[in-house]
């Protein structure tokens, strides 16, 4: 937004000042006080729970209490979760699953689906079976092996 044009700004201020002249109908203020005092003498409506809380509780303290409660719950949850992890962490790996499902049964479960069931034998990577295979051989240069001795 650019800075206001001073001429326009002056006009705007005059327009706003003219709003002061907007008045309610004649006699409005003569009756206003009576209406207020009549309503004031009527019994006050019972304040809602929110209004009572608003009157009696300092919003800053309430916010601080809620914040502290949230932190407390967070810490409690964190500690609880930590102790649970610690319990499972101590369990030896072999005992983690008492009755592991036989491998074949798992595959049988897949048999119902349309996925092809290929039982491949586990093999080590090819490179480990024949090291150096696939690499291009290069004849060694004769001169490269000569040792130059200083004269």
């Amino acid at each position, binding site marked *: 937004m650019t800075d*206001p044009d001073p001429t326009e700004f002056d006009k705007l201020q005059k*327009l706003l000042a003219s709003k002061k*002249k907007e008045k*309610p109908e004649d006699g409005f203020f003569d009756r206003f*006080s009576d209406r207020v005092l009549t309503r004031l003498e009527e019994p006050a409506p019972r304040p809602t729970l929110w209004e009572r809380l608003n009157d009696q509780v300092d919003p800053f303290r309430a916010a601080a209490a809620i914040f502290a409660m949230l932190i407390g719950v967070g810490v409690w949850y964190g500690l609880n979760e930590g102790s649970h992890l610690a319990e499972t962490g101590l369990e030896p790996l072999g005992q983690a699953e008492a009755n592991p499902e036989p491998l074949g049964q798992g595959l049988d479960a897949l048999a119902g689906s349309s996925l092809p069931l290929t039982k491949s034998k586990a093999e080590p990577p090819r490179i480990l079976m024949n090291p150096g295979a696939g690499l291009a051989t290069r004849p060694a240069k004769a001169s490269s092996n000569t040792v130059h001795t200083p004269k």
Partner: protein
Amino acid sequence: MLETPSIVSPAKGGETMPEWNEQEHVSRAREGDMEACDALVQQYQERIYATIYHMTSNHEDAADLAQETFIKAFRKIQNFKGDSAFFTWLYRIAVNNTINFIRSKRRRVILSINQMDEDWDSGEELLGLVSKDTPQRDIDRHELQGILNAAMQKLSPNHRLVVTLHDVQGLPHEQIGEIMDCNTNTVRTRLHYARKQLQAHLSDYLKP
């Protein structure tokens, strides 16, 4: 603490009262003296009503909210500690009430504009502020009021409030800061942005 400067009752059309002692009236109102309550209403009714009216641009809403403001103030007058002037405390109640009201009915704004004061014969002067190149050359005073009020309604409640208190009602920045519970610099910044937004909304009418 800012003292209320006026010892002239606005309700009596500028008639000078013997002497306005706010503290005395407030302490009597605290004890349930209805005459003191009446005097406090008479003293501040016009300014409270006007603030709410310029915020809502609706006479019926302003009348209801102004009544509620005084009733709330008298019912809670025991909570008034005297840290600020009674007038500032009353204004705060009015302003909070009005802002809550505006937020609750944001999508249902109905303008109900009051007539200009009969003894104010500056219609031509007012229309002279409007550009000759305005889209509606034959705009009248009432239309101009409507356009201005509609532009005011486009401002956020806080921006509208600062324009109302400063540019319409002529309150100083310090007192506005007390009412809005913010510092003077915030008041100035809000006023600057509010005016720029108003100028943008009224640019078709205010061009030289």
